[in-house]
Structures are given as C-alpha cells and as structure tokens.
C-alpha cells in the first residue's frame, strides 16, 4: 500500500515535469508573469496539459488492456500488439478512412474497434485450432497474424495513396496531441475503470475455464467482456496516439512479479506504472534530441524490448 502511494507520487511528479518540458519556454516564472492570452499560458492549455493527459490516459489504459488480455487468453506474453489486435484496428481505421472519410473520429474509432475485436477473435480461433504446448509460441502466432493483417493494410493503403497517413498513425507519437485531439482517450479511462470493477471475474478467468465454471461464472461472457475492453482501448489509443508497442506486456509482467495477479490488487498498480512509464519515456524522447523529438513508439520500443528480453530470460520454463 505504501509502495503504491510512492508510485502514485512519482507518477504525479513526472506528470508535472511533463508540463514544463518542451521547445516553448513554459515555466512557473513565465506562467506567473504572463496573462491568459500570452504564449506560455496558451502553450500550457492547448498543448502541454492535453499532451500530459493523453500520456497518462493511454499509458494506463494500454497497460491494463494488456493485463486483461493476459488473464483471458491465459498467456503471459500476449498483448494487443502480439495478438493481431492493434494491426486489425489499424486496418479498420484505414477502411473507415477510405469508405466513410466524412465520419467523425468517434465513428471511425468504433469501426477500428470492431475490426480489432474481429482480429482478436480470429487469433483465438487459430489458437483453438492449433493447440500450442509452448507458451512462447502463442504470441509468435499473434505476431504472424498481425504481420499478415499489416500486409493487407499496407497494400490497400498503397493502392489508395494513404501510405503516409498509415505510417503516421501506426507510429505512436504524442507531439501531435493538442486540445480537441485527445478527448477520445477518456473512453480508455472508462475501460480501465470497467476492468477494475470486473477485476475478480478476470482473475477467476485467469484461473482457467474449469475453475471459472466451478465458481459459477460464464467463461465465455467474461472472455467477451475482456476482449471488448481490449479492442476498445487498442482502437482509441491507435486513432489518437498511434501504437505503443510492448507497454501492455512489460508493465503487467513486472507488476505480476511484484504483487502477483489478483487483479483487484494489480489494476491500480498496472494503471499507475503504465502511466508513469509512458510519461518517463515521453519526457526522455523530448529531452534526448531537443529541440527535436523522438516518437514515443521508438522510446518505448527500445526500453520495452530490453525489459521484455529480461523477462523472457528470467522466466523459468514452467512459470507460464
């Protein structure tokens, strides 16, 4: 409990730091000396606060989505980007951009979410057809499926001359976040809260189908609820920020090592650490090559893959 409080304080400190890091000079001094119409205040309100909120919302939601997915799929190494979910969402967003370009972002996001759900369902279908003994093969199948969906997406994006847009939304990046361009992410917060409310169900589902049935829960229903949460979060984050790889994988795994998998306890941990981790990575991306920025997907990808390798190597063969 005290540790969690510490993690929350650290995350808040990072959030405050995030408000003051960037090309434009925003500091307590400039803010106090400037009026509501001055540059510093405007930058803070239009760019920095929305950006910081977007980081916190997407970081927490993506990490929790990864946790939910690991519970319902019962595999430590799945997350939206290793199960075809992110790629399917991307395909859905492309389809929406081609066929209903005039729709509001909310509508396009919902199309992306339905594609994400269908892609994940396909992934589970494949897993059912090819029972895999090795835990690590499961995410490999997901990555292959994601590759195939990604290839289809790239082909159509190329045909419709949308390749640059596709690249832009696949590459997670917070630098484009402004007021009015991140609000969909609040849906991610709703999903995170929903995951917390249903935490016990997901933990039970993580114990396996037989245990779930024995305790009187409908396994199928818990599974669908979980996958809807995961698909919505993936779609919302994809259309607002772009994909953030590894996040849903490393944070739940680290938390699992620390406090176990009882989701009633771990959801707050995963949400706070997810937000804190993305905040730290984004601040790093802003500082390293200032005045230029390194996109979040690159920073998280580099750090995340190192943590992932560490997790893989320390995993004993039976601790799946």
């Amino acid at each position, binding site marked *: 409990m005290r540790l969690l409080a510490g993690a929350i304080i650290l995350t808040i400190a990072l959030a405050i730091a995030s408000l003051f890091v960037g090309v434009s000079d925003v500091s307590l001094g400039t803010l106090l000396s400037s009026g509501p119409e001055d540059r510093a205040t405007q930058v803070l309100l239009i760019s920095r606060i929305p950006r910081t909120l977007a980081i916190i919302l997407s970081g927490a939601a993506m990490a929790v989505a990864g946790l939910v997915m*690991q*519970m319902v799929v*019962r*595999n*430590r190494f799945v997350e939206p980007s290793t199960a075809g979910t992110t790629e399917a969402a991307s395909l859905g967003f492309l389809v929406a951009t081609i066929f209903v370009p005039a729709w509001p972002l909310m509508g396009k996001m919902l199309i992306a979410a339905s594609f994400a759900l269908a892609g994940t369902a396909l992934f589970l279908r494949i897993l059912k057809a090819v029972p895999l003994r090795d835990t690590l093969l499961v995410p490999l199948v997901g990555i292959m499926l994601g590759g195939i969906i990604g290839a289809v997406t790239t082909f159509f994006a190329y045909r419709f001359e949308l390749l640059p847009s596709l690249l832009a939304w696949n590459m997670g990046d917070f630098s484009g976040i402004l007021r009015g361009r991140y609000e969909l992410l609040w849906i991610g917060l709703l999903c995170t809260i929903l995951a917390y409310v249903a*935490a*016990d169900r997901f*933990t*039970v589902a*993580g*114990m*396996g*189908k*037989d*245990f779930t*049935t*024995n*305790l*009187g*829960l*409908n396994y199928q229903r818990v599974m669908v609820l979980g996958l809807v949460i995961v698909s919505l979060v993936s779609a919302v984050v994809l259309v607002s920020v772009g994909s953030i790889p590894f996040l849903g994988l490393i944070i739940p795994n680290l938390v*699992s090592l620390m406090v*176990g*998998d*009882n989701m*009633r306890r771990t959801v707050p941990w995963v949400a706070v650490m997810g937000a804190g981790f993305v905040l730290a990575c984004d601040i790093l991306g802003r500082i390293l090559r200032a005045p230029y920025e390194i996109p979040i997907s690159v920073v998280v990808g580099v750090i995340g893959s190192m943590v992932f390798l560490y997790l893989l190597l320390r995993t004993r063969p*039976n*601790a*799946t």
Partner: protein
Amino acid sequence: MIVAQGVTKNYGTSCVVDGVSLTLPAGGITSIIGPNGAGKSTFLSMISRLMSMDMGTVTVAGLDVTKTPSDVLARRLSILRQDNHMTARLTVRDLVSFGRYPYSKGRLTLEDKQQIDDAIGYLNLGELSDRFLDELSGGQRQRAFVAMVLCQDTDYVLLDEPLNNLDMKHAMGMMKLLRRAANELGKTVVLVLHDINFASWYSDYIVAMKNGKLANQGPAAEMIDPKVLSEIYDMEIKVHEIGGQRISLYYE
C-alpha cells in the same frame, strides 16, 4: 443424491462414456474406479457441468446440471479436476478466498473470512498462506486447490484424482480429511481414484467403469472382491483382509 441417466459422450466416432445410468447416494464417500480410458474423468466432468453431454441427464440434489444457473450450482456442488495449470499468479490465501466467490462475488464478509481461515487451517496451509502458488511444490499446490474447493462449502464435493502429486503421508491426510468432511459436515464426496486400496479403506460406495460403461457398483465391502476387481481390470487381483480392512494385492 446424484442421478445420472443415459449419460453419453462421443469424441468423433469413439464413445468415451456410453449410456451411464446410476444413482449415487447422498452423504459419505463414493469412489469411481476403473482402468485408464474408462471414461471416469469425463463422466465426473459431465456430472459437474464442466463438459457438455451428447445424451442423457444428470441431477444433483434434484437440480438438472445443464439447466440450473451456473452460479446456483456453484453453491451446491464443487469440482476440482486434475492437472490444474494456472497462469494467474495467486497466493494461497487469494486462491482459497475465491472459493467464496459464488457467495460473495468478491466482497468478502466476516463469515467468508472465517470460512477461508478454516479451510486454510483444515489443510495445514497456515504457514504457506502468503506464498505464491508457483513457489509451492506439487503436493502443496494440490492441497491449496482442495482448500479452495472446501472453502466453497458445497454439499457435493467432486474431486478428480485428489491424491495426484501427494506423498503417502499427505495422501493419507487428504483421505482422512475427506472422511472427516463427510462424517462431521455431512458432505457428499465423489472421487476418481486410481489406488484401489485407498478406495477400499476410505469409501462407502464404489462405482467401477470400464470402456465408457458402468461395469459394477456397490458398497465398498462388496466391490473389493477378487472376482469383481479381476473383471474390471482384466488381471488377477488378490484381496486379503488385514486388520479388518480389505487390501488388494496386484503386484505380480
């Protein structure tokens, strides 16, 4: 009372459980025995609605297991299968607490907490209660699972090979515990057992299955009989009475 009528399960063209009809008495310990592939585990899974049946009906205390809402059944009947591979990293106490889920839906009352402590005490898991399941030995883990099922506090407790992974001492302890649960708490315990001597020593009633069919059934004293057992297992089995217990010898 558990009543099965014409229970059948097919996998493709092979029939694993073939029209089994039987009535298991309420109270006491019933063991299901039989050679490998007799369909014992499949039968137990169908009684406990873990597996659907292709034909037949099962009622437990008058409730049709395929029609009664699952959460209602979860307060009457609990089932533990063998090979419980768990991805979720839970502590022993967490696991046992989930035995209360059918009642509390996650909000544990004082009474729930008492039940959890009792179940942990019953299986001597006190010192291990804050350890994670993946840090335990196979036998300790098995005891934790049984504690969870007991914590569910159902009239009917179904266990598939509960002695798996247990050494002699713990196997004996487990059977004594189930005996106590049947005698003191009035539970109906149904087990799939491989060791016919444990079945002989601790069961009231024995059901034998062979090739998916009901082969024989009766009070333990009648079932542990050289002729009956030899027919079930297709091998010579001698039965000796030692200290008032019927012990089977089948080692050569």
